[in-house]
Protein backbone atom coordinates (compact mmCIF):
# COMPACT_ATOMS: atom_id res chain seq x y z
CA UNK A 1 0.00 0.00 0.00
CA UNK A 2 1.12 3.56 -0.29
CA UNK A 3 0.14 6.80 1.38
CA UNK A 4 0.30 10.21 -0.27
CA UNK A 5 -0.13 13.72 0.98
CA UNK A 6 -3.03 15.76 -0.45
CA UNK A 7 -2.96 19.28 0.97
CA UNK A 8 -3.18 18.95 4.73
CA UNK A 9 -4.37 15.34 4.65
CA UNK A 10 -2.79 11.99 3.95
CA UNK A 11 -4.74 9.55 1.81
CA UNK A 12 -4.23 6.04 0.62
CA UNK A 13 -2.87 6.21 -2.92
CA UNK A 14 -2.43 2.58 -3.86
CA UNK A 15 -3.69 -0.56 -2.23
CA UNK A 16 -3.43 -4.22 -3.16
CA UNK A 17 -3.97 -7.33 -1.10
CA UNK A 18 -4.01 -11.05 -1.70
CA UNK A 19 -4.10 -14.29 0.25
CA UNK A 20 -5.06 -14.19 3.91
CA UNK A 21 -3.27 -10.92 4.65
CA UNK A 22 -5.79 -8.08 4.55
CA UNK A 23 -5.87 -4.47 5.64
CA UNK A 24 -8.65 -2.22 6.83
CA UNK A 25 -8.54 1.54 6.42
CA UNK A 26 -10.48 2.94 9.35
CA UNK A 27 -11.41 6.60 9.55
CA UNK A 28 -8.81 8.13 11.88
CA UNK A 29 -9.91 9.12 15.36
CA UNK A 30 -9.66 12.74 16.39
CA UNK A 31 -6.00 13.71 16.70
CA UNK A 32 -4.76 10.48 15.12
CA UNK A 33 -2.98 10.00 11.83
CA UNK A 34 -4.47 8.32 8.79
CA UNK A 35 -3.58 4.70 8.51
CA UNK A 36 -4.23 1.06 7.96
CA UNK A 37 -4.83 -1.92 10.21
CA UNK A 38 -3.39 -5.19 8.94
CA UNK A 39 -5.29 -8.39 9.59
CA UNK A 40 -4.31 -12.02 9.04
CA UNK A 41 -7.61 -13.76 8.24
CA UNK A 42 -5.95 -17.18 8.55
CA UNK A 43 -5.79 -16.54 12.29
CA UNK A 44 -2.12 -17.44 12.63
CA UNK A 45 1.07 -18.47 10.88
CA UNK A 46 2.11 -22.05 10.21
CA UNK A 47 5.51 -23.30 9.09
CA UNK A 48 6.19 -22.73 5.42
CA UNK A 49 3.77 -19.77 5.30
CA UNK A 50 5.03 -16.62 3.73
CA UNK A 51 3.65 -13.17 4.37
CA UNK A 52 4.92 -9.93 2.97
CA UNK A 53 3.85 -6.36 3.41
CA UNK A 54 5.13 -3.36 1.54
CA UNK A 55 4.24 0.16 2.56
CA UNK A 56 5.30 3.44 1.00
CA UNK A 57 4.94 6.86 2.56
CA UNK A 58 5.33 9.36 -0.27
CA UNK A 59 6.84 12.78 0.35
CA UNK A 60 5.21 14.45 3.35
CA UNK A 61 2.69 11.66 4.00
CA UNK A 62 1.84 10.91 7.64
CA UNK A 63 0.28 7.57 8.48
CA UNK A 64 0.19 4.78 11.03
CA UNK A 65 0.15 1.10 10.14
CA UNK A 66 -0.87 -1.25 12.93
CA UNK A 67 -2.26 -4.76 13.21
CA UNK A 68 -5.68 -5.90 14.37
CA UNK A 69 -4.33 -8.58 16.70
CA UNK A 70 -1.23 -10.20 18.06
CA UNK A 71 0.28 -12.52 15.45
CA UNK A 72 0.50 -16.16 16.49
CA UNK A 73 3.08 -18.56 15.09
CA UNK A 74 2.16 -22.22 15.56
CA UNK A 75 4.36 -25.15 16.46
CA UNK A 76 6.32 -26.59 13.54
CA UNK A 77 7.79 -30.02 12.99
CA UNK A 78 11.56 -30.17 13.23
CA UNK A 79 12.05 -30.66 9.50
CA UNK A 80 9.58 -27.92 8.51
CA UNK A 81 10.77 -24.83 6.77
CA UNK A 82 10.42 -21.76 8.97
CA UNK A 83 7.57 -19.39 8.27
CA UNK A 84 8.64 -16.11 6.70
CA UNK A 85 7.25 -12.68 7.46
CA UNK A 86 8.76 -9.80 5.53
CA UNK A 87 7.96 -6.12 5.63
CA UNK A 88 9.43 -3.34 3.53
CA UNK A 89 8.86 0.28 4.49
CA UNK A 90 9.76 3.10 2.10
CA UNK A 91 9.56 6.38 3.97
CA UNK A 92 9.82 9.34 1.64
CA UNK A 93 11.27 12.78 2.33
CA UNK A 94 9.61 14.65 5.21
CA UNK A 95 7.15 11.80 5.74
CA UNK A 96 6.06 10.56 9.16
CA UNK A 97 5.73 6.79 9.35
CA UNK A 98 4.52 4.68 12.23
CA UNK A 99 4.82 0.89 12.10
CA UNK A 100 3.04 -0.42 15.17
CA UNK A 101 2.11 -4.08 14.76
CA UNK A 102 1.13 -5.87 17.94
CA UNK A 103 3.33 -8.53 19.46
CA UNK A 104 4.17 -11.79 17.72
CA UNK A 105 3.52 -14.81 19.94
CA UNK A 106 5.73 -17.80 19.18
CA UNK A 107 4.18 -21.06 20.34
CA UNK A 108 6.53 -23.68 21.73
CA UNK A 109 8.21 -25.31 18.74
CA UNK A 110 7.52 -22.42 16.35
CA UNK A 111 9.98 -21.55 13.62
CA UNK A 112 9.97 -18.04 12.20
CA UNK A 113 12.27 -15.95 10.01
CA UNK A 114 11.23 -12.34 10.04
CA UNK A 115 12.64 -9.29 8.31
CA UNK A 116 11.92 -5.59 8.38
CA UNK A 117 13.66 -3.41 5.83
CA UNK A 118 13.29 0.35 6.14
CA UNK A 119 14.51 3.17 3.95
CA UNK A 120 14.34 6.68 5.32
CA UNK A 121 14.32 9.71 3.06
CA UNK A 122 15.71 13.13 3.89
CA UNK A 123 13.89 14.73 6.81
CA UNK A 124 11.69 11.68 7.38
CA UNK A 125 10.50 10.66 10.84
CA UNK A 126 9.53 7.20 11.98
CA UNK A 127 8.47 5.08 14.91
CA UNK A 128 8.82 1.29 14.73
CA UNK A 129 7.92 -1.40 17.21
CA UNK A 130 8.81 -5.07 17.03
CA UNK A 131 7.64 -7.16 20.00
CA UNK A 132 7.97 -10.91 20.47
CA UNK A 133 6.64 -13.21 23.17
CA UNK A 134 8.29 -16.61 23.53
CA UNK A 135 5.42 -18.94 24.36
CA UNK A 136 1.80 -18.34 25.32
CA UNK A 137 2.86 -16.78 28.60
CA UNK A 138 -0.72 -15.86 29.55
CA UNK A 139 -1.40 -19.59 29.98
CA UNK A 140 2.00 -20.33 31.50
CA UNK A 141 3.61 -21.77 28.37
CA UNK A 142 7.24 -21.05 27.56
CA UNK A 143 8.84 -21.57 24.18
CA UNK A 144 11.22 -24.40 25.04
CA UNK A 145 12.45 -25.15 21.53
CA UNK A 146 12.20 -23.64 18.11
CA UNK A 147 13.78 -21.01 15.96
CA UNK A 148 13.46 -17.27 15.77
CA UNK A 149 15.50 -15.13 13.44
CA UNK A 150 14.71 -11.47 13.17
CA UNK A 151 16.39 -9.02 10.88
CA UNK A 152 15.96 -5.25 10.91
CA UNK A 153 17.81 -3.07 8.41
CA UNK A 154 17.49 0.70 8.32
CA UNK A 155 18.92 2.71 5.46
CA UNK A 156 18.97 6.48 5.55
CA UNK A 157 19.34 8.15 2.15
CA UNK A 158 20.93 4.97 0.82
CA UNK A 159 23.38 4.29 3.69
CA UNK A 160 22.93 1.36 6.08
CA UNK A 161 22.73 2.97 9.53
CA UNK A 162 21.29 0.16 11.64
CA UNK A 163 21.28 -3.62 11.40
CA UNK A 164 19.82 -5.77 14.14
CA UNK A 165 19.91 -9.56 13.89
CA UNK A 166 18.27 -11.66 16.55
CA UNK A 167 19.10 -15.36 16.47
CA UNK A 168 17.51 -17.71 18.95
CA UNK A 169 17.70 -21.32 17.86
CA UNK A 170 17.41 -24.69 19.52
CA UNK A 171 16.75 -24.70 23.27
CA UNK A 172 15.19 -21.25 23.28
CA UNK A 173 14.10 -21.20 26.94
CA UNK A 174 17.56 -22.29 28.11
CA UNK A 175 19.14 -19.47 26.10
CA UNK A 176 16.62 -16.93 27.41
CA UNK A 177 17.48 -18.05 30.96
CA UNK A 178 21.07 -16.81 30.61
CA UNK A 179 21.96 -13.62 32.47
CA UNK A 180 23.14 -11.49 29.54
CA UNK A 181 20.26 -12.71 27.34
CA UNK A 182 16.98 -12.33 29.25
CA UNK A 183 17.63 -13.89 32.70
CA UNK A 184 14.50 -15.99 32.38
CA UNK A 185 12.40 -13.35 30.62
CA UNK A 186 10.04 -14.56 27.90
CA UNK A 187 9.24 -11.39 25.98
CA UNK A 188 11.30 -8.77 24.19
CA UNK A 189 10.70 -5.65 22.16
CA UNK A 190 12.63 -3.07 20.21
CA UNK A 191 11.34 0.44 19.69
CA UNK A 192 13.20 2.51 17.11
CA UNK A 193 12.53 6.16 16.47
CA UNK A 194 13.93 8.86 14.19
CA UNK A 195 12.91 12.48 14.10
CA UNK A 196 13.51 15.99 15.38
CA UNK A 197 14.95 16.68 18.84
CA UNK A 198 16.87 13.44 19.41
CA UNK A 199 18.38 13.95 22.87
CA UNK A 200 15.25 15.47 24.37
CA UNK A 201 13.15 12.62 23.03
CA UNK A 202 15.69 10.04 24.24
CA UNK A 203 15.54 11.48 27.75
CA UNK A 204 11.73 11.48 27.65
CA UNK A 205 11.77 7.80 26.66
CA UNK A 206 14.26 6.96 29.41
CA UNK A 207 12.06 8.72 31.98
CA UNK A 208 9.01 6.77 30.82
CA UNK A 209 10.97 3.52 31.06
CA UNK A 210 12.23 4.42 34.53
CA UNK A 211 8.69 5.19 35.73
CA UNK A 212 7.39 1.86 34.42
CA UNK A 213 10.37 -0.28 35.54
CA UNK A 214 9.55 -2.92 38.11
CA UNK A 215 10.33 -6.53 38.92
CA UNK A 216 10.03 -8.55 35.74
CA UNK A 217 10.55 -5.82 33.14
CA UNK A 218 13.51 -3.64 32.20
CA UNK A 219 14.37 -1.37 29.31
CA UNK A 220 17.09 0.86 27.95
CA UNK A 221 17.44 3.48 25.24
CA UNK A 222 20.34 5.03 23.36
CA UNK A 223 20.69 7.58 20.59
CA UNK A 224 23.24 7.11 17.83
CA UNK A 225 23.43 8.41 14.27
CA UNK A 226 20.11 10.18 14.78
CA UNK A 227 18.33 6.91 15.61
CA UNK A 228 16.83 6.29 19.01
CA UNK A 229 17.29 2.58 19.74
CA UNK A 230 15.67 0.80 22.64
CA UNK A 231 15.27 -2.68 24.01
CA UNK A 232 12.77 -4.08 26.47
CA UNK A 233 13.00 -7.44 28.25
CA UNK A 234 10.02 -8.70 30.25
CA UNK A 235 8.92 -11.79 32.14
CA UNK A 236 5.77 -12.20 30.04
CA UNK A 237 3.60 -10.67 27.35
CA UNK A 238 1.50 -8.56 29.70
CA UNK A 239 4.53 -6.88 31.34
CA UNK A 240 6.06 -6.32 27.92
CA UNK A 241 2.94 -4.61 26.62
CA UNK A 242 2.75 -2.22 29.58
CA UNK A 243 6.34 -1.11 28.97
CA UNK A 244 5.86 -0.82 25.20
CA UNK A 245 2.72 1.30 25.70
CA UNK A 246 4.60 3.54 28.17
CA UNK A 247 7.43 3.96 25.64
CA UNK A 248 5.06 4.72 22.77
CA UNK A 249 3.26 7.25 24.96
CA UNK A 250 6.52 9.11 25.55
CA UNK A 251 7.39 9.11 21.85
CA UNK A 252 3.95 10.03 20.50
CA UNK A 253 3.14 12.78 22.99
CA UNK A 254 -0.60 13.15 23.15
CA UNK A 255 -1.63 11.41 19.98
CA UNK A 256 -3.92 8.48 20.79
CA UNK A 257 -2.60 4.99 20.15
CA UNK A 258 -4.40 3.04 17.45
CA UNK A 259 -7.57 1.59 18.98
CA UNK A 260 -6.20 -1.94 18.53
CA UNK A 261 -3.45 -1.10 21.06
CA UNK A 262 -5.88 0.11 23.69
CA UNK A 263 -6.94 -2.66 26.00
Amino acid at each position, binding site marked *: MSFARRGALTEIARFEQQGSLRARLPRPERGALAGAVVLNTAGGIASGDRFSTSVTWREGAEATVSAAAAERVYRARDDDRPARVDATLEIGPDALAEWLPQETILFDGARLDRSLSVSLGRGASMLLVEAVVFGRTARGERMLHGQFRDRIDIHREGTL*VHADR*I*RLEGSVAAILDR*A*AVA*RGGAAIASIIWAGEGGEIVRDRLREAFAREAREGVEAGASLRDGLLLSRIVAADGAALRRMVVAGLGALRQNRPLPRVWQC
Partner: protein
Amino acid sequence: MTSAPDRTLEPAALWRLLLWSSPAFPVGAFSHAHGLEWSVEAGEVSDAASLLAWMEDLLQHGSGWSDAVFLAHAHRAAVARDGKALAAIASLSAAFAPSLERQVEQLAQGAAFARALAAAWPAIAEALPPPERLTYAVAFGAAAGAAGIALDNALTAHLQAFAGMVVSAAVRLVPLGQSDGLRVLAALERSVAALTASAGEAAIEDAGGACFRADIASMAHETQYTRLFRT
Protein backbone atom coordinates in the same frame (compact mmCIF):
# COMPACT_ATOMS: atom_id res chain seq x y z
CA MET B 1 37.14 -23.82 2.59
CA THR B 2 36.77 -27.06 4.51
CA SER B 3 40.36 -28.27 4.26
CA ALA B 4 42.16 -28.73 7.56
CA PRO B 5 43.20 -25.33 8.90
CA ASP B 6 46.90 -24.57 8.85
CA ARG B 7 47.68 -23.29 12.33
CA THR B 8 51.41 -23.01 11.84
CA LEU B 9 52.33 -19.36 11.49
CA GLU B 10 55.51 -18.05 9.92
CA PRO B 11 57.54 -16.33 12.65
CA ALA B 12 56.93 -12.93 11.02
CA ALA B 13 53.15 -13.49 10.95
CA LEU B 14 53.13 -14.68 14.56
CA TRP B 15 55.19 -11.63 15.55
CA ARG B 16 52.57 -9.32 14.02
CA LEU B 17 49.65 -11.21 15.52
CA LEU B 18 51.14 -11.12 19.03
CA LEU B 19 51.82 -7.41 18.75
CA TRP B 20 48.41 -6.50 17.33
CA SER B 21 46.46 -8.45 19.94
CA SER B 22 48.60 -7.37 22.88
CA PRO B 23 46.99 -5.13 25.53
CA ALA B 24 49.96 -2.82 24.86
CA PHE B 25 48.90 -2.23 21.24
CA PRO B 26 47.57 1.33 21.19
CA VAL B 27 43.86 0.80 20.48
CA GLY B 28 42.78 2.14 23.88
CA ALA B 29 41.27 -1.14 25.09
CA PHE B 30 41.95 -0.13 28.71
CA SER B 31 39.22 2.51 28.48
CA HIS B 32 36.42 0.13 27.46
CA ALA B 33 34.35 -2.35 29.44
CA HIS B 34 31.54 -3.33 27.01
CA GLY B 35 28.82 -2.15 29.41
CA LEU B 36 30.17 -4.31 32.24
CA GLU B 37 30.53 -1.33 34.56
CA TRP B 38 26.74 -1.14 34.74
CA SER B 39 26.39 -4.92 35.16
CA VAL B 40 28.73 -4.74 38.17
CA GLU B 41 26.85 -1.73 39.59
CA ALA B 42 23.55 -3.59 39.19
CA GLY B 43 24.95 -6.66 40.94
CA GLU B 44 24.69 -8.85 37.83
CA VAL B 45 28.40 -9.55 37.81
CA SER B 46 29.71 -9.89 41.35
CA ASP B 47 32.25 -12.72 41.36
CA ALA B 48 34.28 -15.00 39.10
CA ALA B 49 31.34 -17.36 38.44
CA SER B 50 28.93 -14.64 37.32
CA LEU B 51 31.68 -13.02 35.23
CA LEU B 52 32.40 -16.33 33.50
CA ALA B 53 28.69 -16.87 32.76
CA TRP B 54 28.35 -13.32 31.37
CA MET B 55 31.41 -13.80 29.15
CA GLU B 56 30.11 -17.15 27.88
CA ASP B 57 26.84 -15.43 26.93
CA LEU B 58 28.67 -12.71 24.99
CA LEU B 59 30.80 -15.28 23.18
CA GLN B 60 28.04 -17.75 22.35
CA HIS B 61 25.01 -15.50 21.91
CA GLY B 62 26.25 -11.94 21.59
CA SER B 63 28.85 -9.55 20.28
CA GLY B 64 31.73 -12.04 20.62
CA TRP B 65 30.06 -14.32 18.09
CA SER B 66 28.97 -11.57 15.67
CA ASP B 67 32.36 -9.88 15.71
CA ALA B 68 34.03 -13.23 15.03
CA VAL B 69 31.80 -13.71 11.97
CA PHE B 70 32.63 -10.21 10.71
CA LEU B 71 36.33 -10.76 11.35
CA ALA B 72 36.26 -14.01 9.36
CA HIS B 73 34.52 -12.41 6.39
CA ALA B 74 36.83 -9.40 6.45
CA HIS B 75 39.81 -11.76 6.53
CA ARG B 76 38.58 -13.69 3.48
CA ALA B 77 37.80 -10.49 1.56
CA ALA B 78 41.30 -9.16 2.28
CA VAL B 79 42.94 -12.42 1.21
CA ALA B 80 40.91 -12.28 -2.03
CA ARG B 81 41.70 -8.56 -2.41
CA ASP B 82 37.98 -7.98 -2.82
CA GLY B 83 37.56 -4.35 -1.80
CA LYS B 84 33.86 -4.30 -2.61
CA ALA B 85 33.08 -7.28 -0.37
CA LEU B 86 35.24 -5.76 2.37
CA ALA B 87 33.35 -2.46 2.18
CA ALA B 88 30.00 -4.28 2.48
CA ILE B 89 31.20 -6.20 5.57
CA ALA B 90 32.57 -3.00 7.12
CA SER B 91 29.23 -1.25 6.56
CA LEU B 92 27.20 -4.10 8.10
CA SER B 93 29.53 -4.43 11.07
CA ALA B 94 29.36 -0.70 11.81
CA ALA B 95 25.54 -0.76 11.63
CA PHE B 96 25.38 -3.54 14.23
CA ALA B 97 25.98 -1.37 17.32
CA PRO B 98 22.97 -1.67 19.65
CA SER B 99 23.88 1.54 21.50
CA LEU B 100 26.01 4.67 21.25
CA GLU B 101 28.72 3.32 23.56
CA ARG B 102 29.01 -0.02 21.82
CA GLN B 103 29.49 1.94 18.60
CA VAL B 104 32.15 4.11 20.25
CA GLU B 105 33.94 1.00 21.52
CA GLN B 106 34.11 -0.54 18.04
CA LEU B 107 34.83 2.59 16.02
CA ALA B 108 37.36 4.18 18.41
CA GLN B 109 39.37 0.97 18.56
CA GLY B 110 39.00 0.41 14.82
CA ALA B 111 40.29 3.88 14.01
CA ALA B 112 43.16 3.57 16.51
CA PHE B 113 44.10 0.16 15.11
CA ALA B 114 44.18 1.59 11.57
CA ARG B 115 46.36 4.53 12.71
CA ALA B 116 48.83 2.25 14.47
CA LEU B 117 49.03 0.01 11.44
CA ALA B 118 49.56 2.96 9.10
CA ALA B 119 52.42 4.18 11.29
CA ALA B 120 54.35 0.90 11.46
CA TRP B 121 53.01 -1.44 8.75
CA PRO B 122 51.96 0.98 5.98
CA ALA B 123 51.77 -1.67 3.25
CA ILE B 124 49.30 -3.75 5.28
CA ALA B 125 47.32 -0.67 6.29
CA GLU B 126 46.52 -0.12 2.62
CA ALA B 127 44.39 -3.28 2.68
CA LEU B 128 42.00 -1.78 5.25
CA PRO B 129 38.66 -0.24 4.31
CA PRO B 130 38.33 3.56 4.76
CA PRO B 131 38.74 4.60 8.42
CA GLU B 132 35.30 6.22 8.74
CA ARG B 133 32.97 3.76 10.47
CA LEU B 134 35.61 1.03 10.55
CA THR B 135 34.98 -1.46 13.35
CA TYR B 136 37.80 -3.05 15.31
CA ALA B 137 36.68 -6.56 14.28
CA VAL B 138 36.74 -5.74 10.56
CA ALA B 139 40.03 -3.81 10.79
CA PHE B 140 41.67 -6.70 12.64
CA GLY B 141 40.34 -9.32 10.23
CA ALA B 142 41.34 -7.40 7.12
CA ALA B 143 44.82 -6.66 8.48
CA ALA B 144 45.37 -10.29 9.45
CA GLY B 145 44.24 -11.46 6.01
CA ALA B 146 46.59 -9.02 4.29
CA ALA B 147 49.48 -9.99 6.61
CA GLY B 148 49.41 -13.73 5.92
CA ILE B 149 47.97 -14.63 9.32
CA ALA B 150 45.71 -17.70 9.13
CA LEU B 151 42.05 -17.09 9.95
CA ASP B 152 41.90 -19.49 12.91
CA ASN B 153 44.83 -17.77 14.57
CA ALA B 154 43.43 -14.30 13.93
CA LEU B 155 40.04 -15.27 15.42
CA THR B 156 41.56 -16.78 18.55
CA ALA B 157 43.85 -13.79 19.06
CA HIS B 158 41.04 -11.27 18.63
CA LEU B 159 38.74 -13.14 21.01
CA GLN B 160 41.58 -13.25 23.51
CA ALA B 161 41.98 -9.47 23.21
CA PHE B 162 38.20 -8.98 23.67
CA ALA B 163 37.92 -11.35 26.64
CA GLY B 164 41.08 -9.88 28.16
CA MET B 165 39.65 -6.37 27.89
CA VAL B 166 36.35 -7.23 29.60
CA VAL B 167 37.91 -9.45 32.26
CA SER B 168 40.57 -6.89 33.17
CA ALA B 169 37.82 -4.28 33.52
CA ALA B 170 35.92 -6.68 35.80
CA VAL B 171 39.02 -7.30 37.92
CA ARG B 172 39.10 -3.57 38.66
CA LEU B 173 35.35 -3.04 38.97
CA VAL B 174 34.05 -5.96 41.03
CA PRO B 175 36.89 -6.08 42.29
CA LEU B 176 38.34 -9.53 41.74
CA GLY B 177 41.78 -10.90 42.51
CA GLN B 178 44.18 -11.26 39.61
CA SER B 179 44.02 -15.06 40.03
CA ASP B 180 40.22 -15.02 39.71
CA GLY B 181 40.50 -13.06 36.47
CA LEU B 182 43.04 -15.52 35.13
CA ARG B 183 40.86 -18.48 36.10
CA VAL B 184 37.95 -16.96 34.14
CA LEU B 185 40.17 -16.51 31.08
CA ALA B 186 41.45 -20.08 31.44
CA ALA B 187 37.88 -21.38 31.69
CA LEU B 188 36.94 -19.62 28.42
CA GLU B 189 39.37 -21.74 26.38
CA ARG B 190 36.78 -24.28 25.28
CA SER B 191 34.21 -21.68 24.24
CA VAL B 192 36.80 -19.74 22.28
CA ALA B 193 37.99 -22.88 20.50
CA ALA B 194 34.42 -23.79 19.53
CA LEU B 195 33.68 -20.23 18.46
CA THR B 196 36.81 -20.04 16.32
CA ALA B 197 35.80 -23.23 14.51
CA SER B 198 32.17 -22.25 13.89
CA ALA B 199 32.73 -18.56 13.10
CA GLY B 200 35.29 -19.55 10.49
CA GLU B 201 32.58 -21.38 8.56
CA ALA B 202 29.61 -19.10 9.24
CA ALA B 203 27.74 -17.19 6.56
CA ILE B 204 27.45 -13.44 6.98
CA GLU B 205 23.71 -13.98 7.64
CA ASP B 206 24.68 -15.97 10.75
CA ALA B 207 25.95 -12.86 12.55
CA GLY B 208 23.52 -11.88 15.29
CA GLY B 209 22.55 -12.93 18.76
CA ALA B 210 20.29 -12.43 21.70
CA CYS B 211 22.24 -10.65 24.47
CA PHE B 212 19.42 -8.18 25.06
CA ARG B 213 20.37 -7.52 28.68
CA ALA B 214 24.00 -6.80 27.75
CA ASP B 215 22.63 -4.24 25.25
CA ILE B 216 20.48 -2.68 27.97
CA ALA B 217 23.52 -2.59 30.30
CA SER B 218 25.50 -0.57 27.77
CA MET B 219 22.54 1.82 27.33
CA ALA B 220 22.24 2.21 31.11
CA HIS B 221 25.98 2.89 31.40
CA GLU B 222 25.49 6.15 29.49
CA THR B 223 23.75 7.64 32.53
CA GLN B 224 25.71 5.85 35.25
CA TYR B 225 26.70 8.36 37.92
CA THR B 226 30.33 7.42 38.52
CA ARG B 227 32.25 5.77 35.73
CA LEU B 228 35.80 4.54 35.34
CA PHE B 229 35.30 3.38 31.77
CA ARG B 230 34.28 5.11 28.58
CA THR B 231 31.97 2.28 27.53
